[in-house]
């Protein structure tokens, strides 16, 4: 058990190092592309906590992603960069509170109804923003500039350069991964995994499962919010589509494609989707057809997602 764990740690460290070197070796275009992958990676990981660990297949997760993005916009000064140290925690808090409020109702349902209720809340959030002139309506709103880290009025770190921003996003991804990994291995993590497999049994053991599901939902919402904040400043633009069901669906596709219940699979799924989109759209203007065929093929032939490929190959070899 121990050596495998160390091997995994080494692989993680190597992956992190490789990702940290991207701005040094790659063209700005790829830096932006990778920023997108990592931001969506955080988003997908946050959904994986719900889908893969707690068994809550949300189809409205983008609501929290978008809520934090809009919080970032509202909190940003009109014509000066915002202070990351203040606005990031505040935006994440907004997402977490929204998740807590909607989750309190949503986690009372299960299965398909849960999917549908989260979809409904997602759509409500979408239309609330879409129909609000104060938030920019369907046109969305531009952000003045990327945030800075400021102490006592003096900016000490500026994320305007895409390379620097990329490193911020990478640090957030690493931090999120570390925290979420700790969470799923904690007593709390064990409980939510038990709930996913058999909620009734967990109740019979004495767990008030509702509270754990709700806590998980709120934590997932918070990390979705972190991703949303980063997405808003990556595009320097917010728009209701950030909260739309297509965005939620895409995150779900990333999680399932990567492999549920693994966390790192979610990041792989995000990388796969972003890169495939990029690759297919260079091939043909009908890239959506290729992406669709890819998704259909992978769900039929890769039931455990990308992270399942290794086990699948191992089995094929030993056969």
């Amino acid at each position: 058990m121990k050596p495998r764990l160390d091997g995994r740690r080494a692989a993680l460290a190597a992956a992190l190092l490789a990702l940290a070197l991207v701005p040094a070796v790659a063209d700005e275009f790829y830096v932006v592309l990778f920023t997108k992958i990592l931001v969506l990676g955080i988003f997908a990981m946050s959904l994986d906590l719900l889908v893969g660990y707690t068994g809550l297949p949300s189809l409205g997760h983008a609501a929290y992603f978008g809520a934090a993005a809009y919080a970032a916009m509202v909190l940003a000064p009109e014509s000066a960069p915002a202070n990351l140290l203040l606005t990031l925690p505040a935006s994440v808090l907004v997402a977490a509170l929204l998740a807590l409020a909607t989750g309190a109702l949503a986690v009372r349902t299960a299965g398909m109804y849960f999917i549908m209720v989260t979809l409904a809340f997602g759509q409500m959030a979408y239309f609330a923003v879409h129909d609000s002139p104060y938030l920019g309506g369907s046109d969305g709103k531009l952000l003045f500039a990327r945030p800075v880290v400021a102490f006592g009025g003096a900016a000490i770190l500026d994320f305007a350069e895409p390379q620097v921003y990329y490193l911020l996003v990478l640090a957030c991804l690493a931090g999120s991964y570390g925290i979420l990994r700790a969470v799923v291995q904690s007593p709390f993590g064990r409980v939510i995994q038990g709930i996913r497999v058999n909620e009734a049994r967990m109740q019979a053991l004495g767990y008030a499962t509702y509270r754990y599901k709700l806590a998980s939902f709120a934590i997932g919402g918070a990390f979705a919010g972190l991703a949303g904040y980063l997405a808003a400043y990556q595009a320097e633009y917010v728009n209701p589509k950030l909260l739309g069901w297509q965005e939620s669906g895409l995150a779900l596709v990333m999680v399932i494609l990567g492999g549920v219940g693994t966390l790192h699979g979610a990041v792989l799924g995000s990388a796969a989707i972003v890169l495939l989109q990029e690759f297919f759209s260079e091939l043909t203007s009908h890239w959506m057809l290729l992406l669709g065929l890819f998704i259909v093929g992978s769900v039929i032939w890769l039931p455990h997602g990308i992270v399942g490929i290794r086990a699948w190959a191992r089995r094929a070899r030993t056969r």
Partner: protein
Amino acid sequence: MDISFYVIQALNGIQYGFLLFLVASGLTLVFGVMGIINLAHGSFFMMGAYLALWLARHTGSLFSALPIALLFATAVAFLAERLAFRHLYRRRHLDHVLLTYGFILIFNELQRILWGNDVHSVPAPDLLAGSIPLTATQSYPVYRIFISIVCLGVAFGLAVAIRSTRFGMAIRAGVVNREMVEALGIDTNKLFAAVFCLGAGLAAFAGMIAAPVEAVYPGIGETFLIVSFVVVVIGGIGSLRGAFVGAMAIGLADAFGKALMPQFAGIGIYAVMAALLLWRPQGLFGEKQA
């Protein structure tokens, strides 16, 4: 506003509700009997609308296009079920979501390749093209009345079929308990294929007859899909009666909501759905969850 406003608005709501019912009834049966969340259900509506457009141009009449388009859409559904869905019945809901999301992309892109991105409109058949003048300023299109009548007929036929045929009995059994279907000696493969095709056929039919009142445009499938989801959840998964009541409720709420409270038109139906689920988590006519 005078009484005619409310009468016409009610007609509008009922007509929209009927269309929603056709889409939602297929969705709810596929949900209920097969346990499949079919995000691509809206694609069959879209397919119907585009086929109506294309065939009506070639045959010169919407009515002669109907049977061909219905046959085609059902055949596509049959193939999709045979080649893809069948392998995934025993998998998680998540895999169904992923699979059908993939199908949405495929169908939408095929639509783009075949028919492009243009907005099209399908003329109503000449017989039904007129409007009935009601007051000095307003009139009601004959075709919309026609839609309501046809849908009423289909809904009635569906109800009779479900109640009194062997196929209908298998469907009812399947909604209550999937294992029971096998115990009754029904070939589930055949039943599932039939239900899937029926659902797709209903959606395609709705798309076809809706084509003259809706502009035919890319993305029309998803527009109807999401609202149909709301209908199904309000009515209760697997319940045709629920789908009907839900569709009428949403249709009327939409018609009056848009006219009387336009600022809440977008959020309204979702708020209604969320509120209802808090009161009855299984929908109006749904079976209580274990």
